[in-house]
């Protein structure tokens, strides 16, 4: 019977001396799905990805990619993978075509099949007209597209994208997200890391949330949101955020949790429509002036806040 999993991560550890970069994580990625690893910077996402790509050797545990062990058969693992690194990794003094041709050779393509595949990928990433131009003269978005194109050359069964949208303009980000979904529709399995919860929310079939080298939550978007229940999140900006005021609002009916962060107060409430008038009432009686109000329906940020007590951006 064919294995239904593209990736199986089993008890994976990576230590750097006393520092536990990854501390015993387990998850599986089903074939044909988009799986997102979500977490703040330094959560251990890139270390995990590096072990899956065979760039780092696990201190403990193993990963199976399409049934191949990263410990026992790294070359077989690499042959299944197309990796899009976080930083743009291209030869800037070569042209787009020369880059694709070189990387294609590194993936074992030669001759006519290589030329055909380079033509196809140039078409997919929209660089046919600029194929002979030096990459150094490309815009950031064009480089990003080429960076992704390289990972598609050998039609990999599994594509790993490590924060591919970091530091790019909204238009290029949209283009990348669309291409990820297109690749998935064409049958590719994708493992995607990001610290943008909206991306994970939009793209993923399954999401794993990492923090401090550990997996703190795993499931579909709906399953994760259920962790915090159906509560809304109300973010208030006030002129006073003294402990007394916070205690008063905690005591307000319908308010489940209050945390202060960056000059704002974040409240988890049962139903924002019913609770908001009470909050304004309590503020008025305490002499607190509310400068702004933001209401968020349950999302991954709320999940992270609920699980760690701090916002993702912290």
């Amino acid at each position, binding site marked *: 019977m064919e294995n239904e999993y593209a990736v199986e991560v089993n008890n994976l550890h990576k230590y750097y001396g006393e520092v536990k970069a990854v501390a015993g994580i387990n998850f599986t990625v089903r074939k044909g799905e988009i799986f997102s690893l979500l977490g703040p910077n330094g959560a251990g996402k890139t270390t995990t990805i590096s072990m899956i790509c065979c*760039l780092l050797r696990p201190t403990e545990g193993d990963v199976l990619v399409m049934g191949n062990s990263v410990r026992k058969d790294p070359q077989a693992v690499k042959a299944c993978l197309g990796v899009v*690194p976080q930083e743009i*990794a*291209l*030869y800037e003094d*070569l042209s787009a075509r020369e880059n694709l041709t070189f990387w294609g050779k*590194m993936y074992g393509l030669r001759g006519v099949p290589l030329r055909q595949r380079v033509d196809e990928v140039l078409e997919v990433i929209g660089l046919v007209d600029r194929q002979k131009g030096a990459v150094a003269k490309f815009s950031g978005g064009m480089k990003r597209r080429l960076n992704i194109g390289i990972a598609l050359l050998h039609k990999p069964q599994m594509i790993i994208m490590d924060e591919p949208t970091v530091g790019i303009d909204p238009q290029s980000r949209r283009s990348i997200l669309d291409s990820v979904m297109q690749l998935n529709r064409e049958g590719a399995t994708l493992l995607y890391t990001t610290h943008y919860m909206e991306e994970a929310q939009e793209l993923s079939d399954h999401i794993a949330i990492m923090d401090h080298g550990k997996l703190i939550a795993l499931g579909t978007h709906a399953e994760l949101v259920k962790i915090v229940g159906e509560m809304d999140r109300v973010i208030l900006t006030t002129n006073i955020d003294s402990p007394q005021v916070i205690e008063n609002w905690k005591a307000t009916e319908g308010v489940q949790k209050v945390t202060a962060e960056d000059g704002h107060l974040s409240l988890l409430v049962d139903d924002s429509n019913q609770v908001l008038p009470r909050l304004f009432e309590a503020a008025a009686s305490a002499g607190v002036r509310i400068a702004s109000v933001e209401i968020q329906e349950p999302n991954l940020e709320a999940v992270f806040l609920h699980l760690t007590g701090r916002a993702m951006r912290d």
Partner: protein
Amino acid sequence: MKALDVAIKDMTQSFRSFFAVAFMFGIPILVTGMFYFMLGPGSGADEGMKLPPTQVQIVNLDEGSPLFTATMGSIEPGSSSSGLDFSTVQSMGEVFIAVLGSPDFTEIVSLTIAEDEVSARAAVDAQQAGVAVIIPADFTAAMMEPDTQTSITIYQDPTLTIGPAIVQALLTQMVEMSAAAKISVGVTLEQLNRAGIAVVAGKEQEIFMQYEETAMRRETAYQLLEVRTPSGEVANNQAFNPLGVVMGAMMVFFGFFTGAATAESILREDERGTLSRLLTTPTRADTILTGKLLAVAATLFVQVTFLMLFGWLVFGIQWGQLLAVMLAGLSLVILAGTCGVFLVSLIKNSRQAGLIFGGVMTVTGMIGVMNVFTMNAPGVNPAVEKMALIVPQGWAMRCISLAMEGAIFVDLLPWFGGALLWSLAFFVVGNLRLKRRFA
């Protein structure tokens, strides 16, 4: 195959870099070109470095002697094997003038007969001549008669060195030959007297002149010397080749920079993330490193071959016998390549590389090609030659210099062996460190 792909990619990048090409080809050719125009066309060929002929004012005050005149008169015109006609000369001074003014020395001495000693000295003082030679009145008598002493005066421009030294050497040789003839004839006559054999009057002068004339045959003297190389071959003593030394030194100096800069691509790829990305492809780290080393060797090979061909075709530099030149070129390629790999293995990042290459490579390069500063001049402290061998550049330079001096393949083997040992040490340490770090 993938190693070759990596090598070709690296070479493409190298040859597209303006700075790399300038360092590899532009600067060595430019520096040699400057010397070419300073020294003049032809200075790289086997004609050697030409000095202008030294202007010599000669005053012959020699009054000769009747005996000498009688002796010379007995010589048949055209019988001299040296090609000079001595039948009409009246004194030894005239013989000296005839020899110095002969076609053999026209390239090094330009002779003018001065009227008197004062005008000859005045010509030197006015720097119209480099040397004034004054042959005294009793010179012939002193040469022919026993127990008579005299001396030729050389008056020279104090700002000149080589020209006057050449004139002095020529005169010394002639005077020594005459003195030797005088001693030989004296000893011979004494032996004959002791044996009771009478010598016809005036015959001794004839013997003297015959001895002198025979001694002047250059080919006779040279037949007593044969210079051989350590392998037993007759040495092909090519003339000093200043352009060859300059271009050879430039090739060594910048060749080592090329080796290091090409090997540095490992660091640059590491910093730009392409090395990590390469390691996510089904390509072994060993293969990538092999490709990098191939690129270093191939780039150096192209550089050395191009510069040698360019030097030969454009500047007329004679690099030596083909096999010896190939071995010398190979020694440079392996030394510069492995030295680059070794240095890069010690460096953390490309910023450090700039400092290390700028400092270490410049200093060791200068030590290694020190002979370009001394230009093989005689009298240079031998320690200078030995000191160059404390750095790898010195070994590469020695191989190239020997090839240019006419050494054959076998002569170069010990030096190539030394270069090979350096290279082996560099490669083992460098490769081990790079593998530990990146593989």
